């Protein structure tokens, strides 16, 4: 019934289809140099970014001989033992676990502290609010190289803290977690406070009237509403911390405690006399996979988080 009636109303109105026709011809059908340039540029960009990734993954299945003699060809067979070798002999497994522990801990701490600080700075007025905020923002401008040496001594000295000392000094997971957290907080606070500021005030007021305490308001009402922002900044921090190299090199010299990026670097350095290229690429693939997986899962929320500010 409904389809018939819509057809009936559609037929006596010829101008509408004609309009869509012209729109189509001006959009897709007609040759448009700018559009071609755009498309061509995007294609080029896509190839440039994905090609090295795909090449590294492809190479991780080859034998060492194949890599050196025919680098551009597909592997003759899938050499899964490259991965086994990287995981066990090159200690990538151990380093992977270290990375997971450190990044997991620091990510939880960064998000928790960052969200709480950003929320208070964005939504509560108190003397000194702006000073604290700009101190965080100022932290973003601070180059990490400048801090390396003092940071080394600070973390070293943390070892003399009673009871907690051994857990937060050099070569400890705790020490690196604290440093990662401190290093990630400025941008996290900057980003999230802008996000919290854009959330409607009336909802917070409604929650207060409903009987929320300030803590409950934050955890049960404001945090869920800020989810897109939390996901995008969380992912940003995850990428940054997972790929962090300089800080662990300085603060985690112990071979057992190395994180993945250090391990890969060590593997690359040792290539000079061992020459296990296949294991190196397998290790690289192992290191990339978590990032890719996380990105694929949260892709839509990242986009939502990045555009949310623009829509409000």
């Amino acid at each position: 019934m409904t389809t018939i009636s819509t057809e009936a109303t559609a037929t006596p109105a010829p101008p509408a289809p004609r309009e869509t026709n012209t729109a189509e011809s001006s959009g897709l059908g007609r040759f448009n140099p700018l559009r071609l340039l755009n498309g061509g540029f995007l294609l080029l960009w896509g190839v440039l970014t994905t090609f090295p990734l795909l090449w590294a993954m492809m190479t991780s299945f080859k034998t060492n001989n194949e890599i050196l003699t025919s680098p551009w060809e597909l592997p003759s067979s899938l050499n899964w033992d490259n991965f086994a070798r990287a995981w066990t002999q090159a200690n990538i497994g151990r380093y992977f676990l270290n990375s997971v522990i450190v990044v997991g801990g620091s990510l939880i701490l960064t998000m928790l502290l960052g969200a709480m600080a950003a929320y208070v700075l964005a939504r509560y007025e108190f003397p000194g609010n702006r000073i604290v905020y700009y101190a965080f923002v100022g932290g973003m401008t601070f180059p990490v190289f400048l801090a390396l040496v003092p940071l080394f001594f600070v973390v070293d000295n943390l070892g003399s803290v009673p009871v907690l000392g051994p857990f937060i000094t050099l070569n400890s997971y705790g020490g690196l977690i604290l440093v990662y957290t401190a290093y990630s907080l400025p941008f996290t606070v900057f980003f999230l406070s802008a996000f919290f500021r854009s959330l409607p005030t009336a909802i917070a007021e409604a929650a207060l009237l409903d009987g929320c305490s300030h803590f409950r308001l934050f955890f049960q009402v404001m945090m869920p509403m800020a989810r897109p922002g939390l996901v995008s900044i969380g992912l940003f921090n995850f990428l940054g911390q997972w790929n962090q190299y300089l800080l662990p090199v300085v603060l985690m010299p112990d071979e057992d405690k190395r994180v993945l990026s250090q391990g890969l670097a060590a593997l690359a350095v040792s290539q000079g006399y061992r020459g296990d290229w296949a294991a190196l690429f397998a290790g690289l693939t192992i290191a990339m996979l978590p990032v890719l997986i996380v990105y694929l899962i949260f892709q839509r929320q990242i986009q939502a988080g990045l555009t949310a500010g623009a829509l409000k």
Partner: protein
Amino acid sequence: MATVTYDKATRIYSGTTRPAVNALDLEIGDGEFLVLVGPSGCGKSTSLRMLAGLEDVDSGRILIDGRDVSHLPPKARDIAMVFQNYALYPHMTVYDNMAFALKLRKVPKSEIDRRVKEAAAMLQLEEYLNRKPKALSGGQRQRVAMGRAIVREPQVFLMDEPLSNLDAKLRVQTRSQIATLQARLGITTVYVTHDQVEAMTMGHRVAVLLDGELQQVDTPRALYDRPANVFVAGFIGSPAMNIKTVALTDDGAQLGSLLVKLTREQVAAAGTGDNRQVSVGFRPEDIDVVSASEGGLPLVVELVEDLGSDANVYGHANINGVEERFVVRTTGRNLPHMGETIYIRPKPGHYHVFHAGTGKRLD
């Protein structure tokens, strides 16, 4: 079930000197539906938010059921509020939105379920209980916001322009629903609006505010029939009252060729402060259209709004050399045309007289 008392309650926003609400004195009875009305920026929302605990009370007190709540946090006041944009929790279902406050109060699950279901039935929301607010229409969201307030069974309902985001038809419909619901529940309600029609149709009493000052609080009928000053007279009623400031004579007000007779007391009161002028007002429906021979004021018609049952005639008349605009409500038959001259005369005894300087009503 409670009374609400504003006792010289004052709010001064930081960085300003003029109070947003100045020494507001207001008594709201148990079960009463009181409407705060006024133009934007008059302090009506601020007054409501002071009662809610969302704004500080800088001086004076606010009492709920005799208990001083001026400096208590919102959650200690046992009030529920409906916001203009509804302020529903976007990540919770309709059910959870309504149940949230009860969960915080540790009400037993079965009791929560009973109350939410009951409110949902009252507001025809049963089939939407599992939806998120995003998937609801404006009217449905408005009802959820009402439901969230109802399940609380609070001492006082606060409503901050809850209908202003609805379309005209739904607004009229919801208006009567809210009034009926309030009458059924018998919970003291303070309702803020800028729409004087809403104020007149819903409130048991209406408080008119301007620039943070309470102008008058009375029943809608009394506000309409006996406005306390020029502002209330002009604000209440649509189309607005014709208020003209004219010369004061010994017998009354000289409205062009017409003499509006005033009592001796009114003339005396209008003359206080060496005043030689007086403001007189007539409702559009209190003006008769008469023939030229009956001695009316000649009015050149500019615009005729035909509303079917009656019509509003807008025009201008020359009063002591000044072109003054008038609006007259007439029956819908035999309407004048644009540019035509008609003769008008206020109905005797239906004048409102105000002091030209202070704007106060003179009786």
